[in-house]
């Protein structure tokens, strides 16, 4: 089986596995004052410190994943206007009852002029939440520009950077945001853990109350093995970034050149090198999915959360694609384990599926 669905979940990196297995070997409750408790607390402190240092963050709150981190960020400042882009992950789109939506251009990029007008139309400033890298198209959003606009009008900014870590340079400080979501399993760490990076002066209302862990912003016993696995994976992803990006961009280019008949959604925009949102003219994405699966290749339609419901991609619709084009799009995403052989097989499979469909139509 060839796995090309890294944006749904990245296989665990060996370094993360090693760190976790070691941590499972001496467990304790990090809130306990005895030696066993202190030992695991030291592991957590180290993970927290090294992550913050590498992404130039100020404070880090561990959560159960990206979805919870988004929910905490979006509700933590209390009642205030919320503005999000139309291509956000569902955990952002649905965190509040009725967020105001900023559209994207046909290239999948946030409409900055619209954003400025929209933000200016509010009486009181609120919170703007924008993802850094789109999970379906890989398009990189002009976050820094958006932050400048938002700051001018006194808005706070949150970004979901889950799909950016390890793929583009990532600095909390340089982005200038107030809060940033990270997800462990999107960078090769274990599932069930994530983080919200935030400015030190922010004290969020907790979603989950109790023992007052994580600066009073997120109660619950910390899962030491998951935290050390997350840190190990994230640090490796960050240090391998340049080399991996170069390699995966090469593979991305190879696919695009080998498949002239494929539509590449988001092609015109700055995007990451490991994702391709591909349209196969005249072949429904469901049929592609099944055909790829029969050939031993795992890809996906849109994001994992909604793919179960096989509904149309909201992201592609938001980019203004015709319903016909949306129905024929699939996502393939690569990562640290993807080899050139995998990609050659993918290209071969794509051509076979496309050809057999054309033969069927011709007969």
């Amino acid at each position, binding site marked *: 089986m060839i796995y090309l669905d890294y944006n749904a979940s990245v296989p665990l990196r060996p370094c993360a596995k090693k760190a976790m297995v070691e941590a499972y070997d001496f467990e304790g409750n990090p809130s306990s004052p005895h030696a066993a408790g202190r030992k695991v607390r030291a592991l957590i402190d180290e993970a927290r410190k090294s992550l913050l240092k590498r992404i130039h963050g100020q404070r880090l709150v561990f959560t159960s994943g990206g979805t919870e981190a988004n929910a905490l960020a979006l509700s933590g400042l209390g009642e205030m206007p919320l503005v999000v882009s139309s291509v956000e992950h569902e955990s952002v789109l649905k965190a509040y009852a009725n967020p105001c939506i900023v559209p994207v251009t046909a290239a999948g990029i946030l409409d900055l002029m619209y954003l400025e007008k929209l933000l200016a139309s509010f009486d009181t400033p609120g919170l703007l939440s924008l993802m850094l890298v789109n999970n379906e198209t890989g398009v990189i959003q002009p976050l820094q520009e958006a932050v400048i606009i938002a700051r001018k009008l006194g808005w706070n900014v949150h970004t979901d950077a889950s799909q950016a870590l390890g793929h583009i340079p990532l600095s909390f400080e340089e982005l200038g945001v107030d809060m940033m979501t990270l997800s462990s399993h999107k960078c090769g760490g274990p599932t069930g853990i994530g983080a919200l990076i935030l400015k030190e002066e922010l004290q969020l209302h907790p979603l989950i109350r109790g023992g007052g862990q994580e600066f009073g912003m997120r109660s619950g016993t910390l899962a030491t093995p998951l935290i050390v696995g997350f840190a190990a994976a994230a640090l490796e992803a960050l240090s391998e970034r340049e080399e991996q990006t170069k390699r995966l961009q090469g593979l991305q280019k190879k696919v695009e050149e080998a498949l002239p008949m494929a539509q590449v959604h988001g092609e015109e925009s700055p995007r990451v090198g490991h994702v391709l949102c591909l349209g196969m003219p005249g072949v429904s994405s469901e049929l592609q999915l099944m055909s790829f699966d029969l050939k031993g290749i*795992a890809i996906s339609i849109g994001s994992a959360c909604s793919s179960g419901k096989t509904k149309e991609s909201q992201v592609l619709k938001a980019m203004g694609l015709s319903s016909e084009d949306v129905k024929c799009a699939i996502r393939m995403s690569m990562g640290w384990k993807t080899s050139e052989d995998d990609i050659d097989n993918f290209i071969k499979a794509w051509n076979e599926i496309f050809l057999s469909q054309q033969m069927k139509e011709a007969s």
Partner: protein
Amino acid sequence: MIKRPIYLDYQATTPCDPRVLKMMLPYFTEEFGNPHSRSHAYGWKAEEAVDKAREQVAAILCADPREVIFTSGATEANNLAVKGVAHFYKDKKNHIITCSTEHKCVLDSCRHLEQEGFKVTYLPVKSNGIIDLDDLHKAITDQTVIVSIMAVNNEIGVIQPLAEIGKICRDAGVFFHTDAAQAVGKIPLDVNAMNIDLLSLSGHKLYGPKGVGALYVRRKPRVRLQALINGGGQERGMRSGSLSTPLCVGLGEACALAQTEMTAESARLKALSARFYKAIQDSLEEVYLNGDAEQRIPGNLNISFAHVEGEGLMMGIKELALSSGSACTSASLEPSYVLRALGVEVEMAHTSLRIGFGRFTTEEDVDTAAEMIIKEVNRLRDMSPLWEMSRQGIDIKSIQWAEH
């Protein structure tokens, strides 16, 4: 090799059972699919594993798998149950009943709801740590939406009369939630026989992994709640976010093991606790067991050693990993609110230790621990002015202490 301290803090957390870890590891590595990816075999395999785990969790509660919602732990499950139900029904009812010895996450959720305008009744407990059912009866009004009473207390190990509470709640048409983090795998639970509508549990309190727990939410009569975390609509819309397959598998396996081994393990722990307590009582005067002597889980003892301060005592027995008060609060200097709720005097509350035995505790551990504690208590009593006064027959309460 460095000798590890003897672990006697099984109520704070339990080590992940190697058998559980073995089941989990493949799902961290080869079978890493996202269970919500329905488009390929990686996703299907993950989904299958999650389904099996859900069945295992349901089985230990005598529930239907469709009634199990995976969460990040008992803290989240408790928050979701109490706040979720209160928020969903807030237009109809505004009263919540809980108990003064609940875990902090339930108490803090209730306090937060009070700020939002809900009314909360905090039931007292009797000196044995158990609530008075008459108090519960009287506290229920037509405005009461939910009663949240923990199954087993995390500090003193006492078991609340769940079936009786459940019956009172069902008769009154009020939802019954129980925080069963300390109960699952230790006492038999049956959500139907006990009329439990919502039940929280935690992986790492029953030899499963940290970072996962579950909330049982009854389907008939249906309990509805407002989600804390919205998004992809996983877990019947009650809890969004990608499920972690290995963590779910670990929780399921932990439940299955606990269910199989509960009877034998309970008997073993009961014998260990009795052995320990007898050794202590045979050698030391003025030691007091906190919480009901009978209605308690077999692996927990909470003991006050009169005239010896708990933190000082812990320092002398650093080869033993145990706690004074609960792990969340023991970094602070306040005496345990649970012991205070039982009517234990503040000075006595300062002298207590929580001793938890569990799956990996041996008879040798118990004997060593008892010996160390006895030796250290005697040493510190020789150093204690209060012990000296009590030996001289001076009533410590008669002295005018300058409280600082």
